[in-house]
């Protein structure tokens, strides 16, 4: 793509930032409809119990319009495996279980009614460890899963292999076998889960004001749950206050609001409070990964043998398919002659896991990259060298059948190796971040390092702070992922009589900036300025089909869809313009909202062409539709095939300082080198990089949703440690532009990638700093101190 770009590649602020920064954006919390009722849900008091329920007192409370239990509804089970009843009857299997719901005239009345519901529980012994659930004598956790071909308490199994494992084992000079334990973390969307359902008993249609990331799958799921026709359900996406994968599934509160609206004939709104959000919204899969990995005497990787047990919780979500993505990383991140992968998603009485930005790959990266450092140590090899030796390369077809037509892995690794202090030249120096302005008049800068060194009181501090550097890589789908029957996206373009463009896209804006980047593409091609382009993307009755926001696919898939639509629009415009300009249709030039003939001697404004089409004898509107389906393949039953249009690669390095007295880790620098294909908007891309990295840092050192016997112990921001502005390391980004031939302007999907290798790189950096490795995340001060103590003992 050699043509000069005027819009693409420039730092244009998000076009929807203005409404969001002035308080005008309507989030789910802000929806108010005439006569709207407020819904509330009663959840289980015990994670595993039988129960009887009496709602009569709640029904009598003035202001209560409807109370429902499982006995009052006739619905299909929901979820990816249809193993999740909307309201539970007679028994509960996790602490988030919905057992009754109320619609009332106010929030306060709804909450009071919930308290009036009498429930008698007979507690049962639950299973909170997936390994216990796999034991032969374990009780059955989920009795709703139908036609399972798997053993008891297993929701899903993924098995994959390529190459000759035994042969590769024989070739190996070093084999590392380790167990990695990954925590349960959650999305922490700043807006809690919300839904407003509005059913009309006249039209028999249901309108949902929803924060879903996948409006068309959601419409279909809702129709199945309620036994309705999907076309009678209109999904209007409110402004979404954070997604990150949490809204990839429909959860019971959504059909509950719909049922309450159907029963009352009034709009019903349900908004989670923050504690409910921590308990009843999904989590990232916590899992145990057993990884055996080998390398030959030169450091060439030989094989990976992976066994994973994932805690599914009591019900199954799309998140159960994370192994589909993880296996790609195990089989194909770095050149890999042989791989065997097996994962089980196991039911427990814990809260349910879902999908989360990165989709299993942060977990996979942690295991793989820790093992690589261990192998390098055993072989006496440099940690950078062993990675470069095995890095993926352009033109590689992996054992799993993925085609790396463009690949920036080597360049990404080289970049972070060069930029970070991997050779540890500064390892022995004290913290240089601790400079401060002294209070005396000279305003001289005092370096705490020299102060500490000179002061005998601090003499032991020289050994107190240990620095380390670690690197990690990642590979992720970058051109959609063919999981659903179609991975496509539709676009409708409407050019009006005044030369303004309405871009109707099937894709969704969840804060990531898709509206802006799609408008930029149209602006680039048609030379219509950004302020004359309107993006419509929130209404299933209006917008064409799209599979949803996931798999970092929107810029690639929706972008290609826009470019396809623009091409059709130009064909239409060109025909009329050629007549008006009295020239041939070939080589027309678009410039400054005008169409020019090939030598630029004659021109006509685009809006004039539209009006001539509309009001001239032709009487036609300047409107086009286009549907783009990526050229990727469905994988076969053995999970082999080119599943994505393209693949994204990245390497990150982390520089940390560990306080060996307190165990605290300070992340100083994260260097990010990522193959993004092409930078479409440098401002937006930095936002995605920085946001992803910090979530990755949190995954590495601070975040964990702690559960004990099925109960969440820290369902609030006070005890669930999301990082704050003070925790932000210096994040350095080096984009690598490989210009993928299939991507719009060469771009690849990039938004999940930045959080994937961060925790893995931090773990390697901590091991480098303190000389002992920690095999579970997050790497908390307690774990650091324990590890140091065990090492010295």
């Amino acid at each position, binding site marked *: 793509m050699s043509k000069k770009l005027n819009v693409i590649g420039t*730092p244009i*602020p*998000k076009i*929807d*930032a*203005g409404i*969001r*920064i*002035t*308080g*005008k*954006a*309507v*989030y789910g*919390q*802000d929806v108010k409809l005439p006569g709207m009722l407020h819904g509330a849900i009663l959840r289980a008091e015990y994670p595993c119990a039988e129960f009887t329920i009496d709602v009569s007192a709640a029904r009598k409370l003035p202001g209560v319009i409807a109370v429902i239990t499982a006995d009052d509804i006739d619905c299909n089970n929901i979820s990816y495996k249809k193993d999740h009843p909307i309201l539970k009857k007679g028994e509960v299997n996790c602490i988030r279980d919905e057992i009754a719901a109320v619609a009332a005239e106010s929030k306060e009345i709804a909450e009071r009614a919930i308290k009036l519901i009498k429930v008698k529980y007979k507690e049962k012994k639950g299973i909170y460890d997936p390994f216990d659930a796999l034991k032969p004598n374990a009780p059955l956790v989920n009795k709703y899963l139908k036609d399972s071909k798997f053993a008891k308490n297993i929701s899903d199994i993924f098995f994959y292999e390529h190459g000759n494992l035994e042969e590769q084992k024989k070739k190996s000079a070093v084999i590392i076998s380790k167990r990695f334990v990954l925590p349960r973390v959650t*999305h*922490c*969307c*700043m*807006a*809690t889960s919300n839904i407003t359902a509005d059913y009309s008993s006249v039209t028999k249609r249901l309108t949902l004001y929803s924060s879903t990331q996948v409006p068309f799958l959601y419409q279909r799921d809702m129709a199945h749950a309620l036994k309705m026709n999907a076309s009678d359900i209109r999904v209007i996406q409110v*402004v*979404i*206050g*954070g*997604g*990150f994968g949490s809204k990839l599934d429909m959860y019971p509160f959504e059909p509950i609001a719909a049922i309450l609206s159907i029963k009352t004939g009034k709009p019903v709104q349900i908004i989670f*409070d*923050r504690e409910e959000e921590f308990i009843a919204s999904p989590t990232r899969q916590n899992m145990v990964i057993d990884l055996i990995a080998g390398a030959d005497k030169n450091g060439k990787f030989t094989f990976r043998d992976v066994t994973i047990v994932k805690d599914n919780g009591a019900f199954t979500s799309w998140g159960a398919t994370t192994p589909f993505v993880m296996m790609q990383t195990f089989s194909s991140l770095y050149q890999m002659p042989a791989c065997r992968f097996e994962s089980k998603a196991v039911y427990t009485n814990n809260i349910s896991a879902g999908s989360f930005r990165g989709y299993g790959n942060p977990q996979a990266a942690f295991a793989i990259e820790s093992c690589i450092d261990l192998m390098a140590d055993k072989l006496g090899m440099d940690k950078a060298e062993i990675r470069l030796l095995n890095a993926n390369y352009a033109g590689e077809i992996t054992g799993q059948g993925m085609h790396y037509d463009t690949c920036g892995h080597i360049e990404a690794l080289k970049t972070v190796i060069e930029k970070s202090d991997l050779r540890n030249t500064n390892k022995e120096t004290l913290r240089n971040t601790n400079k401060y*302005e002294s209070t005396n008049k000279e305003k001289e800068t005092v370096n705490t390092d020299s102060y500490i060194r000179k002061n005998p009181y601090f003499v032991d501090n020289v050994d107190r702070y240990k620095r380390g550097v670690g690197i990690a890589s990642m590979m992720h789908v970058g051109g959609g992922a063919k999981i659903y029957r179609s991975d496509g996206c539709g676009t409708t373009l409407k050019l009006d009589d005044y030369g303004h463009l309405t871009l109707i896209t099937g894709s969704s804006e*969840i*804060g*990531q*900036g898709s509206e802006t980047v799609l408008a930029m593409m149209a602006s680039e091609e048609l030379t219509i300025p950004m302020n004359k382009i309107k993006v419509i993307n929130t209404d299933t009755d209006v917008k064409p089909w799209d599979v949803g926001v996931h798999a970092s696919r929107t810029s690639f898939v929706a972008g290609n869809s826009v470019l396809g639509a623009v091409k059709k629009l130009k064909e239409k415009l060109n025909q009329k313009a050629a007549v008006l300009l009295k020239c041939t249709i070939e080589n027309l030039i678009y410039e400054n909202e005008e169409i020019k003939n090939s030598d630029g001697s004659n021109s006509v404004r685009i809006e004039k062409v539209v009006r001539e089409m509309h009001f001239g004898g032709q009487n036609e509107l300047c409107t086009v539709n286009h549907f783009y389906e990526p050229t990727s393949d469905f994988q076969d039953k053995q999970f082999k095939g080119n599943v994505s249009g393209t693949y994204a690669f990245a390497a990150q390095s982390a520089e940390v300082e560990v306080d060996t007295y307190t165990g605290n880790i300070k992340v100083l620098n994260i260097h990010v080198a990522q193959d993004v294909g092409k930078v479409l908007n440098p*401002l*937006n891309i*930095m*936002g995605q*990089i*920085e*946001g*992803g*990295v*910090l*979530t990755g840092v949190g995954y590495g050192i601070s975040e964990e949703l702690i559960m004990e016997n099925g109960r969440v112990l820290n369902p*609030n*921001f*006070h005890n669930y440690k*999301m990082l*704050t*502005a*003070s925790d*932000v390391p210096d*994040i350095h980004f080096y984009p690598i532009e490989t210009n993928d031939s299939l991507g719009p302007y060469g771009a690849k999907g990039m938004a999940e990638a930045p959080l994937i290798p961060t925790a893995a790189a931090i773990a390697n950096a901590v091991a480098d700093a303190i000389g002992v490795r920690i095999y579970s995340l997050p790497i908390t001060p307690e774990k650091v101190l324990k590890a140091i103590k065990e090492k010295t003992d």
Partner: protein
Amino acid sequence: MSKKKKLVVQNVEVTFILNGKKVTKQIRPSLLLIDFIRDELSLAGTKPGCLEGECGACSVLIDGAAVNSCMYLAINIHGKNLTTIEGLSDVNGLDPVQDSMIKHGAVQCGFCSSGMTMSIKSMQIKYKKDKKKPSKEEIKKGLEGNLCRCTGYVKIIEAAEAVINKVK
């Protein structure tokens, strides 16, 4: 059976400045400021993120200082100057803080943005009054009470630094 005395809670009259205009309202003494702002004043730009004083999404300015409106009783607004996000911009345009947030790419999903903006505004007012230029660390410290999941805070810190210290 003794006759239960019905507890009658008297509404309280409060007079205060709301986004530059004097307002008088009758309110329940137990009403939280966030509910007063969102439900009774119909100003939805103040966001409910946690309702327990941890996330800062509901920050507003009271006499120029950022306060979590979920931790503040509405009756205490009497005699004070309340500014919500709606009061920052007017028909003439955006407040420089809002402008800086947009230009630096500090707004993603936007749910934290009102609160972030208020915290930055509060710092701007304070440092202007003290005639001081805060360090980057001081700015980060000032934003600690506002959580954001989208941005990783970098662009928000940059936006704050630029508008408070008038750099770039």
